[in-house]
């Protein structure tokens, strides 16, 4: 295990940021800490980096007890949401910083900086100041800077949070490819479930200072351990006392399946290739939300007012709702 966090708690005044958290983060993988804002995931990352100290508990990095080590002795790379670029230094100087602190020979520093700038596609910007770069370029520079010191762990705190949607999508695909090339143990914090599902090998879901579930994207999506994880990872609706994904509901126009819930389509909305239906099953309950394909809708000739019968598909992800 590359990073081993055991029984860590942290309070800020009355606010409990982390409550007895234990996690193992395996070597060489890209792990996401996923959860809503204020849930404690950034605090956990900062405790691993040594930028905050835990009230109780221990942190072990690469087998070395690190709980009380200052950040400069942990050999971790940290990437900040707002880049934390050294504004008065050129891009090359930013990347060289950690190597110069370690008194590496000049020629080695130069060679390594050139390699890294090529890796992050910033070779032609080496002599610019950070203020002359775009947000995405600055974050790539920050990544090169963190990688320059060959950290045993790379920690990224909402690395794409300050970027606009398009750049964010490009950059996270790029990060995935980069990780496949460099293979450094990486942990990134995000509140965007799509980002976590798309990029990470493993996801740790954190909410209200506690770990909700740890698993691969498939495990989490297909077998959520709790109501919260199910709701946080994708859309959910309620069908007969269970939480189900809207696309895991089978719609038929006759009461064929035993146990199917009868209802009436009250609203229909076409979004691209899919069609969203709202089905009223009982007057006092919220309508059930169902997603079907356009072809399926045509085939069944569904429209507002159609009578339908709903049942979960056989392989549906479901969590029995807490009432």
């Amino acid at each position: 295990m590359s990073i081993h966090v055991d029984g860590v708690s942290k309070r800020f005044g009355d606010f409990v940021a982390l409550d007895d958290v234990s996690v193992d983060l395996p070597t060489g993988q890209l792990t996401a800490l996923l959860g809503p804002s204020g849930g404690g995931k950034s605090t956990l990352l900062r405790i691993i980096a040594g930028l905050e100290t835990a009230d109780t508990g221990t942190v072990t990095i690469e087998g070395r007890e690190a709980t009380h080590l200052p950040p400069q002795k942990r050999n971790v790379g940290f990437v900040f949401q707002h880049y934390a670029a050294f504004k008065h230094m050129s891009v090359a100087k930013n990347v060289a910083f950690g190597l110069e602190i370690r008194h590496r020979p000049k020629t080695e520093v130069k060679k390594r900086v050139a390699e890294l700038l090529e890796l992050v596609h910033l070779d032609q910007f080496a002599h610019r100041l950070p203020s002359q770069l775009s947000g995405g370029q600055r974050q790539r520079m920050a990544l090169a800077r963190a990688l320059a010191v060959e950290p045993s762990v790379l920690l990224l705190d909402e690395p794409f949070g300050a970027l606009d949607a398009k750049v964010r999508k490009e950059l996270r695909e790029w990060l995935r490819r980069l990780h496949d090339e460099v293979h450094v143990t990486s942990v990134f914090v995000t509140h965007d479930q799509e980002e976590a599902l798309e990029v990470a090998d493993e996801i740790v879901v954190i909410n209200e200072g506690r770990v909700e579930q740890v698993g691969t994207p498939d495990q989490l999506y297909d077998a959520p351990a709790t109501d919260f994880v199910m709701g946080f990872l994708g859309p959910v609706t309620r069908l007969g006392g269970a939480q189900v994904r809207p696309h895991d509901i089978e719609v038929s126009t006759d009461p064929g399946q035993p146990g199917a819930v009868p209802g009436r389509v009250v609203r229909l909305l076409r979004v691209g290739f899919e069609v969203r239906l709202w089905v009223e099953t009982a007057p006092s309950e919220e309508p059930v939300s169902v997603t079907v394909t356009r072809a399926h809708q045509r085939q069944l000739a569904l429209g507002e007012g159609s009578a339908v019968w709903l049942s979960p598909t056989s392989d549906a992800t479901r969590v029995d709702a807490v009432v």
Partner: protein
Amino acid sequence: MARAQAPLTRDPAPVRWGLRVVAVVYVVLLVAWPTYLVFENALKPGLGAMLDGLRDPDVAHAIDLTVTITVYAVLINLAFGLTVSLLLVRYDFPGKRLLSALLDVPLSVSPVVVGLALVLVYNGQDGWFGPTLERLGYQVIFSTPGIVMATVFVALPLVIREIVPVLEEIGDEQEQAARSLGANGVQTFWRVTLPGIKWAVVYGVVLALARSIGEFGAVKIVSGNVVGQSQTATLVVEETYQNFQQQTSYAVSALLALVAMVSLVVVAVLRPKEHKS
């Protein structure tokens, strides 16, 4: 200076011209013309004569003393200002708000009160600490340390006031990044923090410098004002004026005023740089 101009909703011409004339006339009559006259009076006998006046041994000694005092006072305030600013912005400790409020006190205390306060504590006869210090061989009042203390006192908050807002604005992420890259506290300060606040430090130093060179009341009390020994440049201005050596008085004043103006222009020219980044 080059301030961001909001879209002008212009006043009607008579109002605009009226205000403009009143403003310019007021500043010319109160500041610009009288200040100009000091330079004119100083240069009336010619530049050579003015410089000769400054070369008078007592005057030269006073100018030397002012330079020495200013160097000490600025260095002390720089070290103190950097330390206190970092503590106030980057750390938590009990009494932080109180310390922050007290730091502004020296700006609103009368120079005469500053002088009196230092005399009460540090004079060699009946001061609180003065006799003990004198027995140990340190004379404070009527001597250079006293003048330095008075000067440091009056210029104390200037460096802090420049640095604190800039430190707050740049935040501590760059410092955290440096830490995570392996820099220790000292390396982080020299390589990251200081370059980030360098212009604020320069303004603070220039302002403290101008204030230190010009202090009069407090220095008059603690120095003893002995010609050729503890007399500073500002004290020479008073003494020579009252002894009807007005030419010397104007010459020294012109020199001091010149330093003040250069400081102002330096700050005015440098200031916009900060906002560019």
